[in-house]
């Protein structure tokens, strides 16, 4: 039962990773008792499971994901929302109004209009239906203030850091509220635009340098420098 890779080795689609009694984890597949990679990424062995951390991927909806989307269109009984996935999501009017929707009483475009941004959770999704969103939980709903920054979805775990170390550090240093959409859209809300700009610059820095070592320390230093620099001016 050999494996054919070293830890964190760069593998290409179709590369044979292991033979025999192994399980195919993320971004891998099995054929004739052999495990192959299906995406370019870094291979890793976790117990008996072979995983590949993809270096290129796209957002694919999963039930329970918090996403940030743009309202595309106001429909008869709900809205269509762009969540940067291969499918457009649906948000039902009754979900937003939290009561039965009556077309004669409610004007949907006054609640949410095209171009509005919302924080939502994916309530249901399967192969045959487009994802359905819900905003019926605290923290979800229309975004009224703050700024948006978009990053590659595969870099969201980097922005979070180990056990949330990175994101909590940025929140603390800048005093901003940050909501991460799993689909790669990030909302930054602060007391003033300067704080928001600082947090956004830090996130941009993470995206640009996401593969270098000691990133959390460097971002901490970057934020401290920027803050003192701002005061001197």
């Amino acid at each position, binding site marked *: 039962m050999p494996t054919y890779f070293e*830890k*964190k*080795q*760069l593998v*290409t*689609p*179709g*590369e*044979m990773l292991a033979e025999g009694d192994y399980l195919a984890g993320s*971004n891998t*597949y099995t*054929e004739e008792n052999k495990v*192959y990679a*299906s*995406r*370019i990424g*870094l291979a890793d062995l976790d117990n008996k499971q072979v995983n590949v951390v*993809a*270096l*290129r*991927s*796209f957002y*694919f909806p999963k039930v329970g994901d918090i996403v940030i989307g743009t309202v595309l269109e106001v429909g008869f009984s709900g809205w269509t929302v762009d969540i940067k996935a*291969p*499918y*457009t999501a649906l948000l039902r009017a009754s979900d937003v109004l939290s009561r039965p929707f009556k077309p004669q009483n409610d004007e949907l475009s006054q609640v949410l209009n095209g171009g509005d941004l919302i924080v939502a959770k994916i309530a249901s999704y399967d*192969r*045959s239906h487009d994802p359905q969103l819900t905003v019926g939980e605290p923290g979800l709903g229309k975004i009224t203030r703050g700024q948006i920054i978009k990053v590659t979805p*595969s870099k969201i775990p980097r922005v979070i850091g180990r056990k949330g170390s990175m994101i909590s550090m940025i929140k603390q240093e800048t005093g901003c509220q940050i909501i991460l959409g799993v689909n790669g859209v990030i909302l930054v809300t602060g007391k003033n635009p300067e704080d928001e700009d600082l947090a956004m610059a830090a996130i941009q820095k993470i995206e640009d340098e996401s*593969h*270098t*070592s*000691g990133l959390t320390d460097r971002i901490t230093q970057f934020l401290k420098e920027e803050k003192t620099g701002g005061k001197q001016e």
Partner: protein
Amino acid sequence: MNEKPEKLINKKGLRLDGRKADELRPVKIEVGILSNADGSAYIEHGKNKILAAAFGPREMHPKHLSLPDRMVLRCRYHMAPFSVGERKSPAPSRREIELSKVIRECLEPSVFVEYYPRTGVDVFIEVLQADGGTRCASITAASLALADAGIPMRDLVVACAAGKIDDTVVLDLFDTEDKVGCADVPVAFMPNLNAVTLLQMDGILKPEEFEKAVSMAIDGCKKIYELQKEALKTKYMLIEQEEEVEE
């Protein structure tokens, strides 16, 4: 070289461009060179210069073309008007439409189309300069563009041709050999799965010559496959090294 050469292989056994019978043209591949595409690749195979770009998976437009159980792969092979000696009309020709279909069908077995139902992936292949064997080079580049777009694949598809000139079976024909020679056999191949996804033949070959041509083309594919993997890895090599430092 507009005049028809009398001999395609000289007394020393070398071809018009100085190659041996089983020698490939120089191949140069780059990945991820277009910022607006989800994935892209550029290949120089001898004098061929080809760009490939992949978009998606995204919602199918027009919607009625989407399939309920799988992703739709669409390909467009197109030759630039300046890619050949005589200006080529930019409108898709019969040949280009056929090649688009052939390339789509040879890429499809490599992609996990069943993972993403009701979506579509578009692959655009633009031949900037043609010198024989563009379909093979296009397949190699298109497969890389798909991998660069992050679409899950069984294996990379690589293609190479073999053929017969002056009664000799040779590898990787260029334009003049293709036109003057006797036969051309393009083969697309998935090396890790040992599966052929495209096999065409233009011309007349004896059965034993055909078999030799196919095995020769597959050997050529394996050589290009190494370059293909190398090109894909080069783009991410930096990432890997830095990732290791962190451990």
